[in-house]
């Protein structure tokens, strides 16, 4: 498919036949752009439906958790950690395809004790370590550091990077989990709410953001081609 930039500046057609041919090409391109636009629009609407579904489930679980602990107060802003650091961040990639759009994906951040961060893409590394909680150094070097950590066997990236460091420098603290703002023993419903919101964030929310961005891009192209069609039609008319 020809890009829009190839259409400008418009050629000065010599006769009506050339104008009509050019006009047909432009109309074909416009059709193709509308097709893409409608596909992205469908993605956006579908993603919004899923967001509504996932967030409703999360709100329901949160309401249940609040109902269960009425004597304790709401699970809300009174308990937020004022020094929290994001364990989920956006990774922006530049696509190489013709659309040249930017994508956004969630990356999970691993924080070591020195405060430096390592990023992994979604699902690649779910491990997080707590920088503020200093573990007491063991009297003898730990024989197997991996055994002390709540780590998945298929997520060794950060561990490999830390291998040259002596064992006391490697964190054995718990993962930084916002659930801990609300205490150690939190109701099952709050975990369920966390799960619903996490799923919404990693799935439909990002789909909607990406579809919205794509819509904006195609929209600009449609406007450009429409303008070119109008100019060409004017040229054909004169």
């Amino acid at each position: 498919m020809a890009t829009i930039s190839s259409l400008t500046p418009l050629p000065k057609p010599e006769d009506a036949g050339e104008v009509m041919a050019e006009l047909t090409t432009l109309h074909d391109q416009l059709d193709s752009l509308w097709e893409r636009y409608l596909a992205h629009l469908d993605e956006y609407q579908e993603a919004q439906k899923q967001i509504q579904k996932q967030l409703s489930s999360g709100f329901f679980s949160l309401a249940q958790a609040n109902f269960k602990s009425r004597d304790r107060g709401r699970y809300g802003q009174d308990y937020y950690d004022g020094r929290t650091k994001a364990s989920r961040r956006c990774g922006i990639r530049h696509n190489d395809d013709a659309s040249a759009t930017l994508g956004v994906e969630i990356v999970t951040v691993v924080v070591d004790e020195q405060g430096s961060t390592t990023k992994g893409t979604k699902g690649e590394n779910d491990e997080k370590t707590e920088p503020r909680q200093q573990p007491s150094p063991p009297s003898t070097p730990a024989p197997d550091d991996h055994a002390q950590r709540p780590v998945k066997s298929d997520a060794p990236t950060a561990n490999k990077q830390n291998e040259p460091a002596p064992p006391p420098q490697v964190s054995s603290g718990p993962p930084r989990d916002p659930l801990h703002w609300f205490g150690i023993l939190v109701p099952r419903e709050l975990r369920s709410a966390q799960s619903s919101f996490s799923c919404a964030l990693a799935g439909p929310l990002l789909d909607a953001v990406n579809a919205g961005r794509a819509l904006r891009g195609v929209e600009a192209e449609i406007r450009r081609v429409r303008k070119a069609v109008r100019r060409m039609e004017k040229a054909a008319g004169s």
Partner: protein
Amino acid sequence: MALPQSAYKDREFLAVIGDEDSVTGILLAGVGHVTDPPDSQKNYLVVDQKTDTATIEGAFDSFTKKRKDIAIVLINQHIADKIRGRVDSYTEAFPSVLEIPSKDHPYDPDKDSVMKRVRKLFGE
């Protein structure tokens, strides 16, 4: 067509403007971030009945214009309605703004700025 990398290379956080339950839920997912002192900045704003429009506008402007580390701004649709002019006129590529439903206000496509743009394009 493609944006320069400098336009988005430092953008890594999600920001949220919403009611207490929405913000709590989104923060539970692990996106909450407070920058280091002395100039600590949160990437969320809890809006309640006492929050005035100027505060919401200030947070929206901060997330979309001042801060260069925000990639996505999530805003409850009923709160976006309070600053509708600003949300609808926002046209920058980064950060992306997405309107989301809240507990008491389901998503309404007629109010969504993305869908408004779609209708405008169809109507042209």
